[in-house]
């Protein structure tokens, strides 16, 4: 029987790398994204807005009667500004996409998951705190709480863990001005940005049967230790 995975934010970057890696591991991947770039992937596409109830319902509809083994909540956005300059709209948008959508998707899909299944939530190293990212940090901190609560709630059948990536070489991070990016890299002990495939490798390992649940893996090249 085909093993089934859902990956959100699958059209590009980390989500696409995760989907491709899971396909290489033998999964059929339902790729969910708000943009139309899913057409460039080999995933079963679901182009929806996960902040809307009908978007969540559409994902559940596509799954149908199939049992689900893996859910990867990866879709996320940023609206960066210092706390004093943020707008309520900046905060609401980031909370809705980064925290509300994974919460609602887990609510909808957990009952469809098979025993031994696994949920992986993409948090961010910013959950430890990051200048200019009050809203993003808040949302990703919330993802950590979601992960812990679901780990307790869904055990022993489904394991729930999170990854907190640091600076990863995606379109989003490459849009940061070169000079600023170089300064950021200079503060990373491993001396480089991470690659999306390195996050995908960890996801592939995490969804194998194991004894880890409720854990947050910080993947930041040592940035959370450096001054």
């Amino acid at each position, binding site marked *: 029987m085909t093993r089934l995975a859902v990956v959100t934010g699958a059209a590009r970057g980390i989500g696409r790398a995760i989907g491709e890696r899971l396909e290489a591991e033998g999964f059929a991947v339902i790729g969910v994204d708000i943009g139309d770039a899913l057409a460039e992937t080999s995933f079963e596409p679901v182009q929806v807005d996960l902040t809307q109830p009908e978007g969540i319902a559409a994902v559940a509809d596509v799954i149908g009667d199939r049992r689900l083994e893996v859910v990867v909540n990866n879709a996320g956005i940023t609206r960066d500004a210092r706390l004093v300059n943020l707008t309520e709209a900046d905060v609401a948008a980031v*909370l809705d996409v980064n925290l509300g959508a994974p919460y*609602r998707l887990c609510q909808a899909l957990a009952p469809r998951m098979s025993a031994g299944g696994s949920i992986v939530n993409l948090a961010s190293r910013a959950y430890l705190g990051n200048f200019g990212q009050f809203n993003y940090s808040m949302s990703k*901190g*919330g993802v950590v*709480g979601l*992960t812990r*609560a679901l780990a307790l709630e869904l055990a022993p059948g489904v394991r729930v863990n999170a990854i907190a990536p640091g600076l990863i070489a995606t379109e989003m991070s490459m849009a940061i001005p070169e000079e600023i990016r170089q300064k950021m890299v200079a503060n990373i002990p491993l001396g480089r940005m991470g690659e999306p495939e390195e996050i995908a490798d960890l996801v592939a390992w995490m969804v194998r049967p194991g004894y880890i649940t409720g854990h947050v893996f910080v993947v930041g090249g040592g940035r959370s230790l450096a001054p």
Partner: protein
Amino acid sequence: MRLLVSPRLQEHLEALDLPGPGLVFEASDRVKDWEAARGALIAAFTASQETAVAESPVVYIVHGDDLLGRRGALAAMVATGLLSAARTAAIELSRKGAVVNVIAVGDDTPAETVARWVGHLVDPAGPTGEVIRLDAAHLGKALP
């Protein structure tokens, strides 16, 4: 000092007569759906921003069990969201000499104890970006 807290804690905080502007924000025990969780986090943002503009101290109060996800996803999302927001606000406000901290309480933590710790944590010479746990939920458990 702006107090967005339960009436019982408010009584004890008012008795302390904390000096100057600042914010004490207590996460509600009643988070029944996503809209309520979202509303709590946005309320915390709005009040925190006003306090940040005034370069004044902030203290968030959460339940220790929620930092570990023991009382359900929604309450956990609010508590850990506030903790991460506090860490970021602490970074931003450290340049202005204002402190931002979190107090984690338990079911049996007396309100007067919480109030006393708020008094410590609004001191600009005190710690910032910290979580002070006034219950025992974290002993031998994961650090947030």
